[in-house]
């Protein structure tokens, strides 16, 4: 019995989901599994959502006003989730703080903590600047309220704290907010691109890995990040608007009873313009991402360096379905055609965004898992089997349920953040 337990404990990290074939070195396993697929996917969403919101704030594309505000709040909700898969993946999650404590800057991962926190503070600052007026107004309204309940008191304290003591909401002060916000968004775009481009650098700079090592990797990652971020924002926006429309019709929500709340038709009209314009940007970035990815593939096939034999077998044979059918055909080509065909509707665009999101996820999967699908000896292969039913903490963390946890968290966070920082704020007065 004791021996049995000892035997079970001897399953080394990676063994549970790696199937080895032909000659692989004894220590080779798929060490970076589904959570590392989730990591660039989630940071990509953060970066993309932020870029979409900046289109309004920096370049003043007025028509994107509503979706911009929404994506700003949503990218804030996504922020902690960019860190989550990394923490779940660490073998020593409680030592994760070491990355901030003794950063070894020759490592691409070392800057993560710093870049991530910088980016987080930029997003938080921008939100504060956009919502300061709302914070002050809400706090003042709550303070003026005669009989406050416990919850009201709590909300009052939160909003008072959120104002950071800046109570001036004169038009001049608000104008200052707008200016500062524009500057922050301007700084934010390069930082967002850096946050994600360097996620690409983490992979692209691993010289031992024949599939990952290409200077195009960071650029490919940024482009696909924007693609996925914009797609997710459109999708979530449409869903949220549908819910609001439904509530407007049935007068369910409290705010819908307000006299100046938008009606169902008005919401439909706003949604249409917002979706159409943002999906144009989606198209531009998709073209860039696809071009670069295909360029990389063509180069590898044409130059045929030492690793090409094994890469060809992985790309063209073993992972053919995952790469060419799921990623390029279903995830890129089909939605692309759907969006460029004339008579585009919101519904068709929404379906396309779902496919785009799937395509970007498959791209991450094919890069991360595909890069570990062959042995460093170039004489063997490793097959990844996603653990579905967890039988211990590790197969939970690095299995289907771990990945689902990561996917669900931003929406849960968004729900709570939305309570204090409403993504759909109607500016009532002072225009």
């Amino acid at each position, binding site marked *: 019995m004791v021996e049995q337990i000892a035997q079970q404990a001897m399953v080394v990290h990676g063994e549970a989901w790696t199937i080895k074939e032909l000659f692989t070195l004894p220590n080779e396993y798929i060490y970076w599994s589904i959570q590392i697929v989730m990591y660039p996917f989630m940071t990509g969403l953060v970066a993309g959502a932020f870029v979409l919101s900046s289109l309004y704030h920096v370049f003043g594309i007025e028509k994107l006003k509503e979706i911009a505000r929404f994506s700003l709040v949503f990218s804030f909700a996504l922020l902690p989730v960019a860190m989550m898969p990394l923490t779940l993946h660490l073998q020593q999650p409680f030592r994760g703080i070491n990355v901030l404590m*003794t950063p070894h800057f020759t490592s691409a991962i070392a800057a993560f903590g710093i870049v991530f926190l910088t980016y987080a503070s930029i997003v938080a600052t921008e939100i*504060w600047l956009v919502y300061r007026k709302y914070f002050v107004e809400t706090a003042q309204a709550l303070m003026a309220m005669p009989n406050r309940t416990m919850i009201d008191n709590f909300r009052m304290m939160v909003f008072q704290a959120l104002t*950071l003591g800046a109570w001036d909401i004169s038009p001049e002060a608000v104008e200052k907010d707008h200016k500062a916000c524009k500057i922050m968004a301007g700084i934010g775009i390069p930082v967002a691109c850096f946050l994600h481009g360097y996620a690409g650098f983490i992979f692209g700079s691993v010289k031992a890995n024949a599939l990952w090592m290409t200077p195009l990797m960071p650029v490919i990652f940024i482009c696909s990040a924007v693609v996925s971020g914009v797609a997710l924002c459109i999708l979530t926006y449409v869903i949220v608007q549908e819910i609001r429309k439904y509530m407007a019709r049935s007068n369910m929500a409290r705010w819908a009873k307000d006299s100046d709340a938008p009606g169902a038709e008005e919401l439909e009209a706003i949604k249409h313009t917002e979706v159409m314009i943002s999906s144009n940007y989606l198209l531009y970035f998709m073209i860039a991402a696809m071009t670069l990815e295909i360029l990389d593939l063509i180069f590898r096939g044409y130059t045929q360096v030492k690793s090409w034999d094994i890469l060809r077998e992985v790309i063209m044979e073993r992972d053919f379905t995952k790469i060419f059918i799921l990623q390029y055909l279903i995830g890129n080509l089909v939605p692309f055609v759907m969006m460029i065909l004339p008579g585009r509707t919101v519904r068709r665009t929404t379906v396309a965004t779902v496919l785009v999101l799937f395509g970007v996820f498959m791209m991450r999967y094919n890069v991360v898992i595909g890069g570990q699908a062959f042995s460093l000896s170039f004489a063997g292969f490793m097959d990844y089997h996603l653990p579905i039913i967890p039988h211990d903490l590790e197969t939970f963390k690095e299995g289907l349920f771990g990945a689902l946890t990561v996917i669900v968290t931003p929406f849960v966070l968004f729900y709570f953040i939305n309570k204090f920082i409403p993504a759909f704020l109607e500016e009532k007065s002072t225009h």
Partner: protein
Amino acid sequence: MKSHVWRPLYVVIVFVVALLVFRFFYVPNDFGSGKRGFMYSYHRISNEMEWKNQPAKYGVSGRERMHEYCSACHGTVVKVRTEKLHGIIPCEDCHGPAMNHPEKPEKLNIDRSRGLCLRCHTDLPYTTSERHRIPGINPKTHNTGVECVKCHNPHNPSLEGMK
């Protein structure tokens, strides 16, 4: 700096200072780089000593010294070995790690298994390898299920020395 828009910056500064103060207490103060520079040797210096101070399990080093070392006490047994054949095998390969054995002469865990002999004496048809020069048997047909030491004397493995 008087404008209210700088307030978030103050929050960030407070946060950074808190982090640096925490770092001051958290990071061991011998963290630094060796002569290989920051890229290859940024580490906690005292860790080198921790590795050096690990206890060793296998004892004396090298074939010659090993036999000398063991024969200091076990002279009669060690002499049995023939220099040519199994004399090249370090005692500890079969008798087990014996670092503290002279001080604490507990019985060593001797590996007498068939598998141990088969490491070298399984016949493999590799004529270009040194392996081919070692006499080999087919473990599937050669007295299956019997420990080799029942017939062969590991300290005097020539066929004349058979028990």
